[in-house]
């Protein structure tokens, strides 16, 4: 064996290695830097691990609940009970149909409670707390609606003229998201709830408001998605052919009340993973910069150790130890917090938005791999790569602190500006790696902050847009054409739902097709005479689908599966939903409804229509409700995004800008020797960083806007409406102000650090 090889250094003498004594001292020496790295890792790992654990737990509970509670495969409704014969024919297709009638009752202030009778065969109830009603004047409320309205078990709630006692809180598998209508842009936990009463109590409700709703359940449970869709289409056709006047037909897949949670989680989990990968990418650069800075600081030590006979491997092992230990400890601490503290916070987010069955926190192998194993692996790889390449130069060059490659070329000439400005430029060039990493870190933090803050003004703006573009104060949807005795300011219209393919999301979306009077006083600027048989798209629909004027767009009747090709001849400023407008006679003819058909009235003053003819009445209050709900849902995310962004700003600013001071500490000391005052040194060294930080913050803004725009394409895929990207100017100012404030907090520590650098440092530095 080669006598110069000393394998025991690797195999058994780690603990005796005198270099290990330096680890504690290095930790103390750079305590701030390592604390900031650890803090950022711990918070990120805690957030991601906690989120993934909860999301996985919720998904498991949700999927189990769907099976055990036998959630429907679809539903249909009619204004009148469906005949036994039609149902029998439908069931011959290979499915079971269950009555699932309900009434919508007005409760509390402006809220609607959808009341079902006991469920025995389909969409079974899960009792979260308390018990199901056992006798008259008792009701079990869906948990989320009760919580958001401050209702407790034992409280009374007035339904119609009857006071009913709340016996328990429940969750219903067909209302995991509380959508009152499937076309609603957002679920509604304030103003819409679901409840169950005994069969006797249900029978006592007036038939006027009764909705004849049916749930269907496929006999074969192993159908593919396509087979399920085909069977549903066949069911719809069969019902129509057998004289059923469908008012609603919706598969579970398209029913937002059932599918929205899954879709939301489906995008939440990749989103949080992308968040983590970005942070990890930024941290990888931070690790590389830190290790480079350590090598520069330690050049003389490294040179001496190499010259003394230490191998490159031993030095790599030494310098990699502390970062890996810190990552490992941060991973452990992050996971501990992720499994203990974070689940309650994330459960709050899910259970505060959705009506879900109870979940359990369980060990999540994927989260562990992602949040603990991966960061350690990245840390090891980056450090190995950086150390291996930097330690390849000769010991002599380390001793001479000659770590840079010589090019022999002259330095880049700087413009003829003041000395101070050129000095700062040199500092910026010297630390370009740190500043570039900081730029991307701030870009990410600014994006998170903007994402968190822009929702409220965007929703408010959307509500204002809806108000501004509202066609009329009231819209009445009728069960059948009813002529009014007192017509007031009313105007008839035909409303029919069609579906069109939304390419980005890869699914059909429902569009309200309005047939409007040729000389409508509610629609200004629609020139039906010149439309050449085409249609007008609402602005939102055009933007969402990307349809352009002149394009022919396909639509499908969700009930009869008839296909229609409609040419877009223009857009109309209407923000309340995804809509198509055409002349009403043409729509009636297109759908074979008869020339004089109509099923709705526009009115500003309000109309007195008998409830038995009324399918829905929409007024400005509904708008307020939707706005409140959206603001509440997105509003709770804002503090989390803000805290995360500020943390990223501060941690990265601290780690990366401190490196600028550390690597120039001896020069700063010399500046003091030459007669520079603290203020002047700050002007040279700290102001270079200040200028870079402020410039970076401003430069990130257009990129943040582009990022938000792209992200909202994904966000908007989930909701059945369209929000214009609206970011008011003050938000940009807030982003810059938040970044600058974070920097000034960090800069305060840097100023103290610069002031503390003593002239003796220069005198001790004798190479």
């Amino acid at each position: 064996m080669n006598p110069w090889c000393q394998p025991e250094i690797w195999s058994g003498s780690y603990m005796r290695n005198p270099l290990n004594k330096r680890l504690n001292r290095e930790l103390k020496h750079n305590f701030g830097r390592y604390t900031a790295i650890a803090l950022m890792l711990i918070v990120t790992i805690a957030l991601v691990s906690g989120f993934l654990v909860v999301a996985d737990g919720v998904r498991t509970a949700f999927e189990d609940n769907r099976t055990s509670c036998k959630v429907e495969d679809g539903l249909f409704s009619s204004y009148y009970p469906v005949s036994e014969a039609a149902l029998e024919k439908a069931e011959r297709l290979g499915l079971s149909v269950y009555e699932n009638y309900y009434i919508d009752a007005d409760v509390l202030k402006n809220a609607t409670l959808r009341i079902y009778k006991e469920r025995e065969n389909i969409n079974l109830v899960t009792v979260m707390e308390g018990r199901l009603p056992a006798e008259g004047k008792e009701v079990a409320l869906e948990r989320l609606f009760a919580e958001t309205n401050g209702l407790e078990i034992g409280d009374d709630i007035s339904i119609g003229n009857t006071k009913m006692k709340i016996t328990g809180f429940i969750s219903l598998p067909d209302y995991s998201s509380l959508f009152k209508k499937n076309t609603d842009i957002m679920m509604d936990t304030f103003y819409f709830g679901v409840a169950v009463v005994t069969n006797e109590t249900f029978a006592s409700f007036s038939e006027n408001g009764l909705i004849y709703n049916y749930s269907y359940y496929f006999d074969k449970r192993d159908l593919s998605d396509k087979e399920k869709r085909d069977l549903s289409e066949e069911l719809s056709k069969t019902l129509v052919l057998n004289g059923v006047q469908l008012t609603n037909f919706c598969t579970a897949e398209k029913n937002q009340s059932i599918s929205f949670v899954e879709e939301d989680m489906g995008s939440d989990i990749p989103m949080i993973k992308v968040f983590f990968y970005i942070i990890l990418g930024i941290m990888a650069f931070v690790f590389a910069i830190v290790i480079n800075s350590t090598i520069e600081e330690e050049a003389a030590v490294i040179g001496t150790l190499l010259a003394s006979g230490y191998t490159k491997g031993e030095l790599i092992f030494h310098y990699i130890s502390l970062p890996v230990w810190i990552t490992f400890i941060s991973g452990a601490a992050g996971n501990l917090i992720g499994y203990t503290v974070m689940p309650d916070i994330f459960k709050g987010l899910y259970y505060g938005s959705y009506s879900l069955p109870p979940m359990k926190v369980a060990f999540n192998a994927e989260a562990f791999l992602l949040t603990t194993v991966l960061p350690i692996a990245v840390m090891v790889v980056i450090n190995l790569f950086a150390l291996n390449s930097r330690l390849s130069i000769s010991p002599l060059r380390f001793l001479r602190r000659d770590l840079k490659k010589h090019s022999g070329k002259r330095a880049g000439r700087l413009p003829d500006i003041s000395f101070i400005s050129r000095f700062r430029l040199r500092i910026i060039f010297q630390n370009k790696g740190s500043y570039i990493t900081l730029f991307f870190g701030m870009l990410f933090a600014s994006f998170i902050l903007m994402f968190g803050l822009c929702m409220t003004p965007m929703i408010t703006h959307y509500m204002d847009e809806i108000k501004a573009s509202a066609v009329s104060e009231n819209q009445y949807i009728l069960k059948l054409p009813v002529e009014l005795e007192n017509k007031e300011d009313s105007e008839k219209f035909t409303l029919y739902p069609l579906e069109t393919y939304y390419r980005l999301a890869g699914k059909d979306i429902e569009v309200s097709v309005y047939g409007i009077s040729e000389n409508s006083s509610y629609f200004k600027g629609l020139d039906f005479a010149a439309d050449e048989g085409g249609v007008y798209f609402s602005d939102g629909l055009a933007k969402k689908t990307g349809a352009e004027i002149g394009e022919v767009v396909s639509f499908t009747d969700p009930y009869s599966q008839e296909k229609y090709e409609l040419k877009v001849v223009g857009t109309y400023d209407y923000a309340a939903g995804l809509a198509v407008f055409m002349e009403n006679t043409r729509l009636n003819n297109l759908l074979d409804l008869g020339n004089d058909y109509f099923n709705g009235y526009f009115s500003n003053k309000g109309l007195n229509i008998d409830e038995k003819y009324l399918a829905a009445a929409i007024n400005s209050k509904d708008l307020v409700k939707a706005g409140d709900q959206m603001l509440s849902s997105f509003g709770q995310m804002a503090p989390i995004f803000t805290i995360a962004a500020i943390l990223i700003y501060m941690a990265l600013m601290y780690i990366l800008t401190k490196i600028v001071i550390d690597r120039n500490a001896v020069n700063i000391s010399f500046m003091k020797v030459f007669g520079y005052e603290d203020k002047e040194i700050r002007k040279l060294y700290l102001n270079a960083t200040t200028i870079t930080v402020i410039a970076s913050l401003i430069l990130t803004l257009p990129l943040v806007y582009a990022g938000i725009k792209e992200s909202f394409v994904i966000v908007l895929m989930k909701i059945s409406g369209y929000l214009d990207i609206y970011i008011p100017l003050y938000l940009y100012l807030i982003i810059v102000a938040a970044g600058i404030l974070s920097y000034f907090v960090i800069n305060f520590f840097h100023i103290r650090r610069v002031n503390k650098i003593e002239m003796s440092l220069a005198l001790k530095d004798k190479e």
Partner: protein
Amino acid sequence: MYLEIRNLKKYYGEGESRTEVLKGISCSIGKGQICVLLGPSGSGKSTLLNMIGGIEKIDEGEIIVDGKPLANLEKRELSRYRRNELGFVFQFYNLVPNLTVKENIEVCEYLSKSPLPIDELIKTLGLWEHKDKFPNQLSGGQQQRCAIGRALVKNPGILLCDEPTGALDYKTSKEILELIETVNKKFNTTIIIVTHNDAIKNMAHKVMKLHDGMIKKEYINESLVSAGDLEW
């Protein structure tokens, strides 16, 4: 006298480990004189230089420069003193590595109200061809020339040189000493050189030999030798 030192004492450490590094030094140096401080390591010569430079605190005694005592100056006043009166030249040049030759000299030009014309100075230093290079692209002698340029550009009253030739070869050392001599003659700058090199004493007007914190020998050089004729 331009520079007067009276009973100067300096201590390091506290309690039992307190060491007296300078044990009551008194001397004076006239305007435009070159003074060489000789002595073995630990004799206190660098400490004395740093105290004249306002970098080390005066524990006892007085240093008076151009009639102004340094002992009670505040941090800011000491900065002003270094800025207006002093130029430093170190053994290892200590140039700012990410600044070019010209920019390194500008570091001190910025501090002066009446700096020397920088381009002329760079030409005098023989660095005109190298003015846009970074320090790591220069030889040791060129780096030391640059460091001297940086110290001189302020046109200081006193140039403090701590082993200015310690890291240079014989030929380059002589070139640097010639440059220092030229500066002394051209600008009438008072120059204090700390060195181990005994031969340098021959170009100095005044020589002080320190030993164990005290002046062991102090004399005026009657037979000056020009820097170019020095040999060792």
